[in-house]
């Protein structure tokens, strides 16, 4: 599956003195089996952009293609589109409405026209994938904690088995264990099901360890694009945009400023560990 956005743009309150360019013409592609991260400060246009991906938001100019079909063309089945490109919103409480969790999660597959048995099977698998045990099936979505609601909302979209999953701040409000599990689940969906994933996140640590590619948005414009290593090599520019570096990258930069000749391009704890050990053992050898 290939989702392609071509020169999409969006202006709020166009033609009035309040006119705001939320998104300047921007193009991007996301394919099955890859994880694309969108980062940028609040108001940089990320939400406007991702709502175009499943047809919720129609660009004022430009086009969106799913497998080379224009999703805004007349006669295109946009209802079916919502199960092929699954979107999880930033505030999951806006996405839950049924009387119990199981019904809520079954809603999507049911709408796809699947039979009861398949719906239940998919809903239960999706609940397991986000770490909600069977005891949650009968709970009301409104009695859940913030983190539990988020899991339920993600399960509701996963149950539709979308080819492309678009998630807005999926781990905000999740406890560390839940966060690690969910990130591992995204990796598994990518590897085993070949799902394409677009993730919007303010967590530079998560983006660094998860994404294949990153697009940085600022004031409605794509200002940088590249691999995590390419993007996080531009720390000063990121800080200038209200963003930051992964924690381990920051530590290596501090170390370098203290005169230790480390490479500062590590993005994960494992990479930083290896780099620090390399430099320390080299200095140890010198002594001997």
């Amino acid at each position: 599956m290939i989702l392609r956005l071509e020169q999409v743009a969006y202006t709020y309150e166009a033609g009035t003195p309040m006119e705001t360019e939320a998104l300047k013409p921007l193009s991007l592609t996301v394919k099955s089996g890859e994880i694309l991260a969108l980062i940028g400060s609040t108001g940089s246009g990320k939400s406007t952009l991702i709502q175009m991906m499943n047809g919720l938001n129609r660009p004022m100019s430009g086009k969106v293609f799913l497998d080379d079909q224009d999703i805004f063309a007349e006669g295109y089945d946009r209802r079916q589109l919502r199960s092929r490109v699954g979107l999880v919103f930033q505030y999951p409480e806006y996405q839950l409405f049924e009387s119990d969790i199981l019904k809520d999660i079954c809603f999507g597959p049911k709408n796809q026209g699947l039979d009861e048995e398949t719906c239940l099977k998919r809903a239960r698998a999706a609940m397991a994938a986000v770490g909600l045990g069977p005891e949650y099936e009968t709970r009301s979505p409104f009695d859940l904690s913030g983190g539990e609601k988020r899991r339920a909302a993600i399960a509701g979209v996963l149950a539709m088995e979308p080819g492309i999953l678009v998630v807005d701040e999926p781990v905000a409000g999740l406890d560390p264990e839940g966060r690690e599990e969910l990130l591992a689940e995204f990796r598994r969906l990518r590897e085993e099901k070949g799902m394409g994933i677009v993730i919007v996140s303010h967590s530079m640590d998560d983006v660094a360890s998860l994404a294949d590619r990153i697009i940085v948005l600022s004031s409605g414009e794509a200002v940088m694009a590249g691999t995590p290593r390419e993007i996080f090599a531009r720390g000063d520019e990121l800080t200038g945009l209200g963003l930051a570096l992964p924690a381990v990258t920051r530590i290596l930069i501090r170390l370098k400023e203290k005169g230790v000749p480390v490479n500062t391009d590590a993005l994960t704890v494992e990479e930083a560990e290896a780099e620090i050990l390399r430099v320390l053992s080299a200095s140890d050898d010198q002594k001997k």
Partner: protein
Amino acid sequence: MAVIRTENLIYDFTVPDPDGETEQKNRALRGLDLSVEPGEFVAILGRNGSGKSTLARHINALLTPTEGTVWIEGMNTADEDKLWNIRTAAGMVFQNPDNQIVLTMVEEDVGFGPENIGVPTEDIWTRVENALTKVGMAAYAKTAPHRLSGGQKQRVAIAGVLAMKPRCIVFDESTSMLDPRGREEVLTTVQELNRQEHITVLLITHHMEEAALADRLLIMDRGQLVMDGTPREIFSRPEALRERGLTVPPVTALADALRHRGIPLEKGICSEEVLAEALARQYRKNGGQPA
């Protein structure tokens, strides 16, 4: 006197059974004993559903105990006559700033609380100005809140609480939706209020790096308080944290990994500067030359 004290705090809530008729009782808090002294900066950590927010809602009497007692500056939260005094003493800032801002101009929004409790008009304006200055938002007094960034909105929400002159503020995941700069802004504000204004802070968070800024960490699990100590003490027990669904900050994880590979580092390091300095010292000790 303790700002917050709880004794055997128990809170039950009921959920309907699958048949929709009978009700099932769930215990969110199971006998919590806690004491927080004036001026403390306490972070509360725990997995989803461990009771953190339920505890927070007892502190400004949004919830009252099923059993046991909560006192805020000695006032029993079950005493309805004390409700407004309690809510003035202990303010709360939530996760989503858009749900907390009610009026169309920043200064009006900040003045809403004091106006509601009958503060004289001229005092309201002084309080609003002071509160906005303390959160670094004085320049935005006449701005419409929807024009602000997430971090700015959250600072306006904090100013709204400050205008009530609280002695204690509970932040319930108040940074979780913010971008890195917004998070930094809010955390700097929280630390300044604690250090300069001596406001007692309870910070509920899932970010271990944020928790490391506190003087004291409380770990909750299944409605109980299971660990209580300084960040260094708590973060030197990664296995115990893992059992509670928690982890250590990346800086501690890196220090632990290096220690296991034979680099002499202390346990529980949770400051990036401390780790970088210790490693630089080790490098010089090995005879390494500055780059």
